């Protein structure tokens, strides 16, 4: 497949963003992703099971994430579960989205500062 432009995916859908964020730096299974998102957002964002797997399927189709064939240490491994990780493209897309959000926040802050003066 030809190299795809990460900007084509922006802005990311909320669900996509949260899932990809929980896969940075670690591989995760579905249950883990759900829990991490729940914790990170203080219970505000719950990825319901069918939505979660539907979204995972789309992300795999878009080649943003992939199934991992490496398993974690045996005592942590849940043999029934499948693990997912970001692809190269996925990392680039996530980085681009983060940059976009940072810029947005930056604009917001400078505007607030201006108002404060």
């Amino acid at each position, binding site marked *: 497949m030809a190299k795809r432009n990460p900007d084509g995916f922006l802005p990311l859908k909320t669900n996509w963003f949260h899932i990809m964020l929980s896969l940075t730096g670690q591989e995760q299974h579905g249950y883990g992703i759900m829990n991490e998102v729940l914790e990170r957002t203080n219970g505000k964002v719950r990825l319901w*099971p*069918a939505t*979660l797997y539907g979204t995972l*399927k789309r992300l795999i189709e878009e080649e943003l994430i992939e199934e991992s064939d490496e398993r974690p240490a045996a005592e942590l491994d849940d043999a029934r579960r499948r693990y997912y990780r970001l692809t190269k493209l996925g990392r680039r897309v996530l980085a681009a989205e983060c940059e976009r959000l940072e810029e947005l926040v930056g604009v917001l802050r400078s505007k607030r500062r201006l108002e404060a003066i």
Partner: protein
Amino acid sequence: MIPFCLAIYRRLARAFPHEFQMVYGADVVQLGEDVIEEIARKHGIFGLLRLVADLAWRVPMEYLSEMRKDLIYAVRMLFKSPGIAMAAVLSLGLGIGVPTAGFSFINVLLLRDLPGAKDPKRLLTTELPTSYVHFERYRDHRELFSGVTAYVQQVPFSVAIGGRPERVFGQLVSPEYFEVIGLRAMVGQTDGLVVSERFWKERLNADRDAVGRMLRVNGHAVTIAGVGPKDFQGAQPEVGADLFVPMAMQAELVPDLGENALHQSDLKAFDVLMRLEPGVTEKSANAAVETIARQLDGEGFDADRKQKAQHVRLLPGGTATPMPPEIKAILFGLLGTLMAMILGISCTNLANILLARAAGRRKEIAIRLAVGASRFRLIRQLLAESLLLALAGAAAGFVFAYWLMGAATTMLRKFVARQVPLNIDLRPDGHVLLFTFALAAIAGLGFGLAPALAATKTDFTPALKNGALTQLRGYRRLGLRNLLMVFQVAGSLMVLVITGFIVLGVPAKQRHVTFDTSNLYLMSIDPVRDGYSPDQTAALFEKLRERLRSAPTMENAAFADGPPENLFAASTAFTVRSLGGEPAKVVESVSKAMASANYFATLRVKVASGREFSVRDEQNGSTGSQPAIISATAAEQMFGSANPIGRRIVNEKDSFEVVGVVPDLTSRGFGGKSSPAVWVPFTKRAYSRPLEGGVTLMVRAASGGDAISEIRHEIAAIDPNLNMFHVRTMREDLDVWNDLIQSAGTVYAGFGIFGLILASVGLAGVTAYSVAQRRKEIGIRMALGAKPGQVLRLVMKESAAMVLAGSALGFLGAWAGVQLLATLSPDLAESLHGKQPLLLIGAPLLLGTLAMLACYFPARRSTAIDPLIALRQE
């Protein structure tokens, strides 16, 4: 609660599409089981509901996303083989377009309710117009009908709004008219003269103050009482009614109701519309009305009615076109069968094309099945393709039908508008669009399903061996399909020959006149409707003729009851009085027309023998001997070679003396014969009642110049209130008919081509399928040394056999059809004299060539089969 939710959750999870289920099904269930207790704890019942709802929402979404992928894939596959896609869309476009046009016709004529009518199912009408006396008796039966009204339709009025009068069509109505149909006036009230909404908008500028204003109707000032409801153009609205004139208005205003029309029980000019009382059935109402009619007829009003078994018949009256149920059934049945046949043929073609395609894709399908795609999924994939084709076909078909019916409407309006303004639009509407897409869905599903099932039934192990045949199917498997093809070829040959016969006969049906049409103008006036008495009318014509003839730019002028060679002229029988010993002779179907003095001079037709009518003939309106002029054909048929001048001919009760013979005014090409014609003088007697189409004024202008405004000026100088309508040149008058014939010929030619295309596409499909089926056999033959030409011959032989068998069958049918047509229309046969062999040999040749060409292209593929690959198939 939790176990119950979990049970639903598990069941729902099983409903995911096969592929999703294979990969994620277990995970989804597992995750649900893992979190359900926590969710119940945290969010209670709403959390549980949310969990199930999430799943219930995702299941259809997954199916949709699959469908989207199927469609994208289908589009890609179709673009890969544009030839097949084009053939399928063309075949289906015609196959759907023609039934759509047919349904559009049915929709307009049979299915539409009377616009604006309240509860149209409760309205009944009499099948035939009846007398006012009958109507009054029906009306008195309050226990049957909550209301009954009578009206006379298609009544022309001469209406002047400020300036010059125009001819407007309307209805004469009884006082209950609007109430019975259930209509209220949009502006004003319905008690009095009501104008239609269309008239109000187009002629009165939608002015609300128009109510209460004066309108000159037939020369009398009448106050407008109200404006009718939106879109209402009268009961039976094909002839749009713009005026609703109460019958109670004075007789001078409505000359059609002169001579005490409301009290004559034999004047059957009144259509009756009745609204049933609740609880009364159509049957019991009919029985009661029948009794009334029998009583009336028993009272001696109407003797000849006794002959009939049934005196009155009631029909549903709430539709735009009341029609007896059995005729409706025939129309539905006939058109329905025809439509189903056309759709069936093109769908069979589609199925053949798809089968051929599926056979070529056996390997692709087998691989997908082998790697775990479900059969259901593959069937859906194949169905997506056939549905896509069907939708494209439906779009093409709808456009085709819209164009066809638009052209038909224009033609019909142009033709009928000479007599009455036709308020009909045959173009398909929203209902028809729905119908078209329903047809497409049926075509796509019905005829895509069988090939899809057949294609995915493959036992995929041998199929994987490079597309080998699982089984070499014998010819018998193709038996039904082949038979169908034979019939299709036969059918299209019949259609081709018969339509060719009609198309070649077009010139014979066209009107060709022998007289000079240059600078000849026609227009109609209707002085009786403009309030003239018979004497005034006669005087008016005298004055008008003098003025027109003395005008420097005019050469001559005359009157008649219709244009020369009027298509609508009354056809009647004349009896030739015997001279000496020969018995009386009757000549049938002679066209009879009234003509004024100078008629033939104006036409620049030289009287062959005798004289033409003089002014004295017009004034001599008494019962005594009247003169008549006959055409050359009439002279030959009536008197043979004898001299007709001075001989007597009798028509009904009138006796005429032949005073002149004129050449035939028409010539039918190719040596055909003209029909006999007789002219009688235009006398005062003709003016006592308004003529249906008014009086046709015929003026020959000297040359050039704006003759029409000149004539208008002359007429206005005599009486500015005289209504002048239907102004045209003689050439235009002829062209309307000739154009109609021409376009009918085009339509027939279209049918012929349509049959050719369908048959060719069908043959190409069958051949392609047979080539795909016999790949292995062909490969072996080639490996054993068969040359491409030999292989081609092998494949073509089979198609040629079908074409030959079909042609032979079709030829017999066509021959019979042509003989039948020839007896039905002798002038057609005559004009085709000498061309029949050309048609009967040329048409099969054309069809055969096209059909073989259609077979050749798919057959040529067989020569491209690589024997190496074919042999590896085992």
